[in-house]
């Protein structure tokens, strides 16, 4: 299952809730887009939470959104960068998708 989060982890608890569901050893994938990309920042509260979750969840970040926000040089190790075509691939490969509001 693919989970998409577009909210900053510093403004909303959406990422936290998503991870509570996604980290259940079912091989779920998380894609961070829009303001959600801030979560991949190294040495941040959100980054640490994400690092922990990465034992269970594959984490991807939409690169154009990360670059636009200037965080491209501070991305947590192990996070996969995807472009728009990669976004489409992730959706196509998943049985179902949840866009967390």
């Amino acid at each position: 299952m693919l989970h998409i989060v577009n909210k900053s982890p510093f403004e909303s608890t959406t990422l936290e809730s998503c991870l509570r569901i996604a980290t259940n050893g079912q091989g779920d994938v998380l894609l961070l887009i829009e303001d959600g990309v801030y979560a991949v920042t190294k040495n941040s509260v959100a980054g640490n939470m994400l690092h922990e979750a990465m034992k269970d969840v594959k984490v991807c970040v939409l690169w154009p959104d990360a670059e636009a926000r200037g965080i491209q040089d501070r991305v947590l190790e192990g996070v996969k960068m995807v472009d728009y075509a990669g976004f489409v691939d992730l959706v196509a490969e998943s049985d179902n998708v949840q866009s967390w509001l």
Partner: protein
Amino acid sequence: MNETTGGVDEGDPGLVKKFMFVNRKAPYGTIYALEGLEVVLISAAFDQDVSMVFMDDGVYQLVKGQHTKAIGMKNFSPTYRALEGYDIEKLYVEQKSMEARGLTEADLLVPVETLSSADMAGLMRSQDVVIDF
């Protein structure tokens, strides 16, 4: 989604999909909860397999004793009790969301099934379509 739906016999059970509506917002601060409920009622008209999930502040939608007269908004909480009449009987709450808010099933308007986060994940995974409100 099946694009041929319009041309197929409505009685064909093969077209029943599992829809899950995930409600994560409190009822009156934003329009999400009310709009979500409207969509669920519409989906009932299409005889789909519908589940409703309430997590995070979404659990507040189901709390007993809502009185909205003084804020000039419609109290739509009685509608949740009518869902059964539309064959929408699968209502789930997430245990952690309930606990965090000091709520138990006795505080809610309708019978629900309380699920752990792990069980919720499994249920979500088994759906054809998951829509957040």
